[in-house]
């Protein structure tokens, strides 16, 4: 009988204790009482891994110089383009000195310029060899990417680029996985002169088939000997595709000048997004017009053509590109080409693609600050050739300036219809040529300074959703640039962005100075020990009662 009362009592207790335990339950998050937790000290929330905004690797590359007779304009950016490359790009590998060639990564057949066909003092037969380079690819030898190329601190998406034919090591040295500075995004700008006889050989060093399609460039449909000359391989399993280990030469003699494109036309949706698109510029035919056949790096044309030099003080090529991180990851997840083919072509649905990173000339902010600045003085005219090879549109906006659109898709607008805008919309694959006039007249320019320019589709200024990032860069007036090519703002203005932890969302964005405390990282709530002990006791008692009940019922049944 006694047992019966005890059982009843414990049952009653259990019924009472369950709501009590529920009421006392500790949470991962709990409402603060009178005093919310203090701000976490900055030292604790700021991990190491800060990079210097400018590595200043080649300060001697910045000044204006003459190499092998080629005039190379000053480039004040932190990471200027290698002037020896520029000299080789202007004269052709066959016309530069051996020391100059040895200061580049070019192979000796990468670019040859011969035969002055029209007798105007510049070579007109141009032979260009392009390879296909995979950046940040997989390795069966360990958990690393090779050759690695950072688009922003700590971010290395898989990319495919066309690259001028190189020689020797692709990485900086044996023991490093870092790509040499020559191998980078985007696919390089190619520049030829109107009327040049151009031969472009695609040497497919990659493990998938590729082609080159010359978009907007005047080119015949077939080569002189009846071979493919349009690169339109559709899916890719036909004779038009250039398969691994093979090569194909495209030929053209473009009659129309302008800013055009070239891109791979095999599985175009995927290969385009992987980075296989670049600008193809046909310069107007002028006497003694040695054009800079490749532009690799930050975008400044360090040896502008005769035509451009006649009208402008400076010229920049701006290549806007986006990266879908899930597509880019595929080449890093597996190594067998058959598995990559299946995952990329047949398992990944490109209609579900999202753009995660937005690059200007291969870099996203803050790395755009290293080589993508437009550096100018007042009263200059700057030619910008802008190409959008993203999936989404670009709405290019300049602070402090209103841009004049002179060309659409390479074709010049009559002067009377050239319009001035502060947002220039560029659909996918479109190009615009812009005249940036730095005359302080309240229309073209509002005065000197450090003025931003960026995509006003604002997601384009994020790195995988973290702001600021993307294709954001600056127009910096010469009085506002320091000797390392960084804008003179207040000290360390951009320092906080030169770390991967910022783009992994580990740093409070505004925690600085006076606001380190009110806008810092909130600390953890101190545990409420009384409540935790009460909860523990309650639950312990509950379990004991349950076990008691179970045992007593079992005993009862046995009796």
């Amino acid at each position: 009988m006694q047992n019966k009362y005890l059982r009843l009592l414990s049952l009653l207790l259990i019924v009472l204790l369950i709501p009590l335990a529920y009421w006392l339950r500790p949470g991962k998050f709990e409402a603060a009482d009178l005093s919310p937790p203090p701000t976490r000290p900055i030292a604790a929330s700021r991990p190491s891994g800060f990079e210097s905004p400018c590595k200043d690797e080649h300060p001697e590359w910045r000044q204006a110089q003459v190499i092998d007779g080629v005039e190379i304009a000053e480039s004040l950016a932190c990471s200027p383009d290698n002037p020896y490359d520029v000299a080789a790009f202007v004269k052709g590998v066959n016309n530069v000195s051996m020391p100059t060639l040895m200061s580049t990564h070019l192979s000796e057949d990468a670019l040859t310029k011969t035969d002055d066909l029209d007798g105007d003092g510049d070579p007109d037969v141009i032979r260009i060899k392009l390879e296909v380079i995979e950046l940040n690819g997989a390795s069966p030898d360990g958990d690393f990417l090779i050759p690695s190329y950072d688009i922003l601190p700590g971010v290395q998406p898989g990319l495919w680029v066309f690259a001028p034919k190189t020689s020797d090591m692709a990485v900086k040295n044996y023991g490093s996985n870092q790509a040499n500075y020559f191998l980078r995004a985007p696919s390089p700008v190619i520049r030829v002169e109107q009327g040049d006889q151009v031969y472009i050989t695609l040497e497919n060093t990659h493990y998938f088939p590729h082609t080159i399609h010359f978009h907007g460039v005047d080119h015949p449909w077939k080569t002189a000997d009846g071979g493919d000359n349009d690169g339109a391989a559709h899916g890719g399993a036909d004779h038009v595709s250039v398969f691994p280990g093979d090569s194909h030469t495209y030929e053209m003699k473009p009659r129309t000048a302008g800013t055009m494109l070239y891109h791979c036309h095999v599985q175009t949706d995927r290969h385009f997004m992987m980075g296989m698109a670049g600008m193809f510029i046909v310069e107007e035919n002028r006497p003694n017009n040695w054009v800079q056949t490749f532009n690799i790096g930050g975008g400044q044309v360090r040896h502008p053509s005769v035509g451009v030099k006649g009208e402008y003080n400076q010229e920049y090529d701006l290549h806007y590109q986006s990266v879908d991180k899930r597509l880019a990851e595929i080449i890093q997840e597996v190594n067998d080409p058959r598995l990559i083919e299946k995952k990329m072509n047949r398992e990944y649905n490109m209609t579900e693609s999202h753009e995660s990173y937005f690059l200007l000339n291969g870099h996203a902010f803050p790395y755009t600050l290293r080589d993508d600045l437009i550096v100018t003085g007042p009263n200059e005219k700057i030619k910008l050739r802008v190409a959008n090879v993203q999936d989404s549109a670009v709405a290019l906006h300049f602070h402090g300036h209103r841009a004049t659109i002179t060309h659409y898709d390479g074709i010049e607008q009559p002067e009377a219809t050239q319009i001035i805008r502060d947002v220039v919309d560029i659909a996918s694959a479109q190009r615009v040529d812009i005249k940036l006039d730095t005359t302080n007249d309240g229309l073209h320019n509002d005065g000197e300074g450090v003025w931003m320019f960026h995509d006003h589709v604002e997601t384009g200024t994020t790195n995988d959703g973290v702001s600021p990032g993307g294709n954001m860069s600056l127009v910096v007036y010469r009085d506002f640039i320091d000797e390392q090519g960084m804008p003179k703002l207040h000290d360390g203005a951009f320092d906080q962005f030169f770390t991967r932890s910022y783009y992994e969302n580990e740093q409070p964005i505004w925690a600085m100075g006076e606001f380190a405390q009110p806008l810092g990282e909130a600390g953890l709530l101190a545990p409420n020990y009384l409540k935790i002990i009460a909860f523990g006791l309650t639950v312990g008692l509950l379990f004991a009662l349950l076990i008691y009940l179970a045992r007593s019922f079992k005993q009862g049944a046995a009796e």
Partner: protein
Amino acid sequence: MRFVKYLILLMTLAAMQPVAAAMNHNGMIMDETGMIMNSNTDKVPRDCKKIAGDVNITVRAGHKQAKKFNGIMYAFDQQQWDVPPCSRINVTFINEDKIRHQFMIHDLPGYLYPQGMFTMEIYGPGQKTASFIVPSQRKTYLVHCEVPQHMEKGMKAQLKVDGGDGDLPSIPGISAAVNADSYRVDWDKSAWGALLVSFFAGAAVLWLLNRIKR
């Protein structure tokens, strides 16, 4: 006129190029068909009294050489060479593709081979011959093509001096990858059958044990 000047300049450069290259550019000899770096026919490594002998090897490189393996795209025709200590290796390197390939070997003594490398690079179909002399110690050297993704996709081999000190990873047909790919397993009838039979066999053991106990 300008072109004549260039031509003369070019010819002068071409004439003096191998000397200048050998002297000023770490033993690099370049022309429009390829590049050879740190070729060595006579400088004997410190630890060798003399050249022990000549080993002639012919290496073919290209995508067709990859066909005898699964899951790769480029390869050499051989994946391993065994050579005696202090021997001179005369390599005839044949590129069977219409793209660039390299025969690049690392970790050689730096005082003979700057950066520890001996490299032969051919820019398209063709062949070149060059030599290097190996030291005496027992060692396995990496031989690869360093064009991005060519080693990763199969163009990788090893040179073993005096039997070598082990195998390098992910050499086609010789060693497994460090992080190997995963493939779908072929669960056919016999695989399922084997699983079922072994399941019942396992259960039968218990049944047998029970019988013995009784």
